[in-house]
């Protein structure tokens, strides 16, 4: 017993373990009124760890050459013991990552978590989302099926539309006149090393920023404004044990759902793995219906809805960049949707526009759907354009002094 304590002291004299645990867990106060929407930050962290872990095991058996990539993935599925499970965990993890991130982002929209003083927290988060899209896209190319190939071709071609340096950039990204073996090897370097390292750095910054400003909450008011005699927030509770226990419950439910998908519906009827990707890459034959993974389909619908190349790509880029400015576009004195009935309606419209775009993006190219895509696109951009005006004049319900429990 005394030996154990002595060892603990020895460690802490050399590494501030207990100080860190105190500052970030046992004496880190989070608002006491967290609800369902507050599960997804910790779940996102869990999926990140799962993806890195399962990815390392896939890397053992994967070959990143144009001739061998497809067969090595089939080898993982059929010859490597339990290889199918590792791969399905990785592919399901990609989809779950976006599901969790989208819910996490929705929470920020609902309760105004992007508002002052959490602007940097929000910006780091949005960078993580963009890196995640890049990581998912690069990973999608790895099996080198026919969808991998043509998806890869199309996305790299988008880079070529950048004025001036576009052609040079595409040659850097593809490593040859066309998308091919040289592209695959560099995509692997980026998918396995570059983007994950960047992701980890930005995730750490995201967490440090969070612990600097503290969590927002469903009422959108700062708990740090009402302190007790000891200087602790009256409406805060220690992260550990209260929210660690809550998060572990969330992890249990999440992993159950995760396991059901992995074991019973690993391709999720084409949503996670498309049937065209069970055909090896064929540079002469574009698949009949080229549609992206569901989590990128709204952007794809935006691209398709505009019959002009440069403008379509510009709108795609703008739709990804606009949310960066959200902290400064919203000028309402109240943060949370609970006290903002007009903002609530705007959020519903925004969600509908994204769902409509997402659905259209998954359909085959069809001119009959174009008008719907354009209306949804107008609503999406309308949200960001009108927010500064509406948020200044919108009616606000009285915001309480203390959080409601």
């Amino acid at each position, binding site marked *: 017993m005394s030996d154990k304590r002595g060892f603990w002291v020895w460690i802490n004299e050399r590494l501030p373990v207990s100080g860190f645990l105190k500052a970030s867990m046992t004496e880190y106060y989070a608002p006491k009124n967290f609800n369902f929407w507050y599960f997804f930050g910790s779940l996102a962290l869990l999926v990140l760890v799962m993806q890195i872990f399962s990815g390392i095991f896939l890397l053992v058996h994967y070959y990143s050459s144009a001739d061998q990539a497809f067969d090595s993935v089939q080898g993982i599925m059929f010859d490597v013991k339990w290889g199918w499970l590792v791969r399905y965990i990785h592919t399901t993890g990609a989809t779950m990552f976006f599901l969790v991130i989208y819910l996490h982002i929705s929470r920020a929209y609902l309760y105004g978590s992007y508002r002052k003083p959490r602007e940097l927290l929000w910006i780091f988060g949005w960078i993580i989302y963009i890196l995640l899209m890049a990581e998912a896209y690069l990973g999608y190319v790895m099996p080198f099926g026919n969808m991998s190939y043509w998806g890869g071709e199309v996305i790299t071609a988008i880079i070529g539309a950048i004025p001036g340096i576009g052609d040079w950039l595409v040659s850097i990204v593809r490593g*040859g006149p066309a998308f091919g073996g040289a592209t695959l090897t*560099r995509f692997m370097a980026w998918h396995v090393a570059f983007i994950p390292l960047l992701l980890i750095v930005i995730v750490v910054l995201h967490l440090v920023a969070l612990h600097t400003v503290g969590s927002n909450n469903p009422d959108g008011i700062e708990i740090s404004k009402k302190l007790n005699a000891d200087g602790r927030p009256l409406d805060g509770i220690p992260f550990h044990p209260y929210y660690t226990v809550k998060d572990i419950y969330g992890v249990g439910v999440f992993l159950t759902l995760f396991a059901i998908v992995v074991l019973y519906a690993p391709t999720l009827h084409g949503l996670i793995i498309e049937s065209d990707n069970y055909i090896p890459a064929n540079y002469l*034959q*574009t698949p009949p219906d080229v549609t992206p993974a569901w989590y990128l389909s709204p952007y794809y619908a935006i*691209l398709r809805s505009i019959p002009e190349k440069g403008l379509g790509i510009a709108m795609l880029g703008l739709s990804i960049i606009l949310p960066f400015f959200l902290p400064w576009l919203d000028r309402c004195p109240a943060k949370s949707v609970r006290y903002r009935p007009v903002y609530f309606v705007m959020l519903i419209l925004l969600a509908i526009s994204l769902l409509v775009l997402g659905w259209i993006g998954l359909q085959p190219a069809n001119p009959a759907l174009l008008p719907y895509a354009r209306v949804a696109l107008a609503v999406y951009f309308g949200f960001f354009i009108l927010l500064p005006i509406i948020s200044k004049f919108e009616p606000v319900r009285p915001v309480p002094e203390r959080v409601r429990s």
Partner: protein
Amino acid sequence: MSAKQDKDEKDSESETLDRKELSKRRFLTAATAAVGTAGIGVVAVPFVKSLEPDAAASAASVVTVDISGIPPGGHITTSWQQKPLIIVRRTPEMLATLNQVTAMLKDPDNKVPQQPSYAQNIYRSRKPEWLVMMQVCTHLCCSPAYDPEKGSVTPTWLGGFFCACHGSRYDLSGRVMHGSPAPTNMVVPDYTFIDGEKSVQITGLEKKSKLC
């Protein structure tokens, strides 16, 4: 008292020293930063250059395709530099559609140099019958499907190319139609007929043409 005065004197003395030291140190900091930045810039060049296509990947190639076996109305798809290339032997009926679609086209007269000068005609070819074309959509590099059947894409479709990726439509000469995201007509490469029209030799792309 005297001790305090002494201290004040020392302070002012060290202050002037500090100011001198400070400007010297600021200069050194700035110089180090400048040299460091220049160094990073110089080292970045070989790293970025290493990502460019290597010599083997960018080697140009000449491809010869045997076309003696293609019947009227038939076609073959082959490749040039790992990109799809289609050769169609068009029938007189198919050629007749080329004049009916003019109003639907973005660039019916091929003003954008997406073809060699000898192919700047409605057939976009050396000989009306033969279409030799890169089957690459100018929007984002997908390979549009060849749909010669009337009514196969839209009810008024007269035959042409339809890109499943983003819905671009082209006529039987690869000229892009209005309402397509693709900006220009598909590229016709440089080619010659050899062996008395038994073969086609593809030699490269026109400098100004842009595949996608």
